[in-house]
């Protein structure tokens, strides 16, 4: 009885605020304030995995970048590669800009939004755009001619004229080839790769980020190379994934006892490009492994990355030769 009276009183009182519960359909994924993959890899991958998990559940997501005060190009490209999956599968998503103006400008200049919203179709191929300083491209084939254009422009940024940088071309081809062959469970279903090239004229260098959001190096090995995988899972003999990758990069583990003789040589060749001063500042992130190849730092990630990311730079003291027309 008392309760009924209370309800009637409440219904009569204009000042009683009825709380309206806004039931959001989307999940808010908050990016870490330091959204720099090279400096803050665990937090960035934790965030990316949350978003990826929502993609797999086909949940709507709101990407909250409001509090981000620091961002780097690897993080931008990984985020683009994840969000493109939402777009391609027509799962609704939204987000906000960072409050920090510098970070906001960097994100816009990277053409992140352009590529996320303006591609003509999910399967768009060969969409090479030139920003003031950045190229982005998604494709599924190995395109050696693309490397020539990138090399011409990168070398002009650094040396004020085109120069041949063979290590750069080798790395690009190896990475495209790896995606083409390894990144999908089913080799008929090719994964996209993403390449971001940042021309940092102020520091006389060009930075490259290559991402494929496929299975990662170790999952590809496990799925495709059963014979090798049986060897690699002998943890007593080979150690952790980080130790295995170190040995692959340094040619200690030779992945040659498969029916496809070339497997594994590409990773070793990329490391050689660094050793021979053809490229600089190489980082690799794949599955639960993080590599800073310059400092020979091979560590295990607590937050795995299901794809593969390579970052490297071309600097003025890297090997280069005359560009002949």
């Amino acid at each position, binding site marked *: 009885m008392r309760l009924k009276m209370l309800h009637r009183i409440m219904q009569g009182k204009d000042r009683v605020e009825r709380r309206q519960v806004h039931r959001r359909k989307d999940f808010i994924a908050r990016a870490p304030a330091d959204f720099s993959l090279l400096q803050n890899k665990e937090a960035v991958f934790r965030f990316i995995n949350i978003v990826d998990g929502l993609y797999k559940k086909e949940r709507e997501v709101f990407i909250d970048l409001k509090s981000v005060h620091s961002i780097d190009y690897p993080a931008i490209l990984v985020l683009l590669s994840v969000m493109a999956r939402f777009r391609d599968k027509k799962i609704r998503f939204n987000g906000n800009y960072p409050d920090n103006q510098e970070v906001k400008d960097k994100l816009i200049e990277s053409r992140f939004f352009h590529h996320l919203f303006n591609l003509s179709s999910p399967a768009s191929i060969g969409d090479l755009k030139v920003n003031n300083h950045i190229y982005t491209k998604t494709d599924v084939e*190995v395109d050696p001619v693309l490397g020539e254009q990138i090399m011409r422009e990168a070398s002009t940024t650094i040396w004020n004229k085109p120069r041949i940088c*063979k290590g750069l071309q080798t790395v690009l081809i190896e990475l495209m080839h790896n995606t*083409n062959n390894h990144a999908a469970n089913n080799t008929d279903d090719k994964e996209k790769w993403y390449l971001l090239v940042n021309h940092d004229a102020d520091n006389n260098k060009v930075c490259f980020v290559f991402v494929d959001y496929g299975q990662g190096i170790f999952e590809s090995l496990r799925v495709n190379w059963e014979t090798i995988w049986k060897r690699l899972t002998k943890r007593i003999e080979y150690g952790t994934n980080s130790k295995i990758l170190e040995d692959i990069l340094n040619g200690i583990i030779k992945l040659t006892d498969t029916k496809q*003789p070339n497997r594994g040589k590409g990773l070793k060749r990329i490391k050689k490009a660094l050793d021979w001063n053809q490229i600089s500042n190489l980082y690799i992130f794949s599955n639960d492994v993080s590599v800073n190849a310059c400092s020979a730092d091979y560590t295990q990630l607590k937050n795995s990355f299901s794809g593969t990311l390579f970052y490297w730079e071309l600097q003025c003291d890297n090997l280069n030769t005359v560009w002949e027309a």
Partner: protein
Amino acid sequence: MGSIIISVSKDFSRTPGAGKRSEGSFSGQEFLETHLAPAFERALKNSCELVVNLDGTIGYGTAFLEQAFGGLARKYPELTVLDTLKILSDEEPYLVDDVTTYVREATGS
């Protein structure tokens, strides 16, 4: 004994690509089928050396070299290939050893 000389950059492409034709343009497989194997046949017929000049390109992927030269060794006996083939690579001298390795490992030996 004379030589037959072919140049990847002048005769095929300045931008060699991936390994197989299905993987993209200017592949090692394409180079093998259109240039390397025919030139090798001519070299065998004329009992002369086949010189392959790797200089002048903007860079190689490992799959290109493996499909081209490893592919050659999968068509012809390994020793025949090693006796007939000579690799010129002043710009990237390490490629000479790489190609030899691909030939030796082509059939899993």
